């Protein structure tokens, strides 16, 4: 995959993901619970103690209305980035996304926020430089983060006896917010759980080497990755993870091109 195509795909996918995150945040705010739990009353003192900003700025930032402004910011700048991707727009999108996480005491949705931020920083770099030899650093940054995310997740599981014997998988499924998944976890045999667990561990490890594959093989791996992330969404409702990780994938295709056909680059 060429640099231009990979950059364009990442730009569109991450813009779309950020737009969705904005819509979702707005709906969360309208549902009310978020405004009560992550309220100014609860967070203002902590934010004042930890943000190196004038107190009156922090008061404004901690205001409940800021949650709505940040949601609109994600939606608006996400939409602009989708239509007119540029270094400036992606800088603003990354800033708004990081600010939204800070307003939520560091994170709204764990790892998906981090992957979104890593992709936004990478795509910003790729638009910042005119020369492809510098701009490609942005896509390589994204692909390295994606590969590390798979590799570290696989390694962490490999260290856990509960993952190796399959009990971890059923344990996590039994804690799903969805009733059908909790019921399913009770019906998975230990042998099946063990096979599935090893499947996940091997798959996550194997992905670290995916850039070494040629395009056709890599497409197949990508297809399996889509199923893997969709399964995570289905089991745990992790929709944000799905879009953040998929948005990073074109960078792997680009890295594969660089590794397998260095003369073309």
């Amino acid at each position, binding site marked *: 995959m060429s640099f231009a195509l990979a950059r364009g795909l990442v730009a569109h996918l991450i813009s779309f993901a950020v737009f969705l995150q904005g819509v979702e945040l707005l709906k969360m705010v309208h549902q009310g619970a978020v405004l009560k739990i992550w309220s100014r009353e609860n967070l203002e003192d*902590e934010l004042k103690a930890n943000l190196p900003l004038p107190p009156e700025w922090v008061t404004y930032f901690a205001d409940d209305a800021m949650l709505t402004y940040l949601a609109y910011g994600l939606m608006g700048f996400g939409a602009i980035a989708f239509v007119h991707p540029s270094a400036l727009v992606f800088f603003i999108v990354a800033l708004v996304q990081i600010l939204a996480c800070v307003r939520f005491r*560091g994170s709204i949705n764990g*790892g998906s926020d*981090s992957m979104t931020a890593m992709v936004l920083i990478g795509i910003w770099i790729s638009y910042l430089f005119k020369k492809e030899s510098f701009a490609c650093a942005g896509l390589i940054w994204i692909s390295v983060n994606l590969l590390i995310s798979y590799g570290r997740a696989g390694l962490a599981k490999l260290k856990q006896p509960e993952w190796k014997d399959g009990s*971890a998988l059923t344990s996590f499924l039994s804690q799903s917010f969805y009733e059908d998944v909790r019921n399913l976890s009770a019906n998975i045999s230990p042998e099946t759980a063990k096979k599935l667990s090893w499947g996940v561990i091997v798959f996550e490890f194997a992905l670290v080497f995916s850039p070494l594959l040629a395009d056709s093989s890599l497409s197949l791996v990508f297809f399996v990755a889509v199923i893997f992330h969709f399964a995570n969404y289905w089991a745990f409702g992790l929709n944000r993870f799905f879009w953040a990780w998929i948005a990073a994938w074109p960078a792997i295709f680009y890295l594969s091109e660089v590794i397998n056909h260095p003369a073309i680059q």
Partner: protein
Amino acid sequence: MGLELLRVIFPRWNFFDRVRYQLVLEVKQFGTKEWLPISFNAARTTGGLFINPEVTRLHAEMSLLENFAQDVQKLVDSNGQVESARVQALTSFKMVRSLVVNRLMVASEADVQFRISAKAGHESVVLYVSDTVEVSR
């Protein structure tokens, strides 16, 4: 805590890495003895792959409970005791209290206590029991 607010740009990439206990949040109405669990259930929605606000909020609330449990553990003294006033000064305590009050606004009008337990299999350890919390009316 300052860098914690920026942890999104310092990813750790550890997912489902530990088979942890499950945290259970329970409430007890003033004057009763029965602890009732607060539900963390969600229904599947059309288009949930695109926007899934209820589940994303539940994940955030569950992370909040984990943060609170960790904060409380840090306050445990050498005698295994936790000073109530110090817990109540925690931001995570204020947020969990708001979570409890918000969930009970419709269901209850009585003041309540809440507690957090760590459950693993059939074993359960109570990590924290609150003083009475006033449910706003």
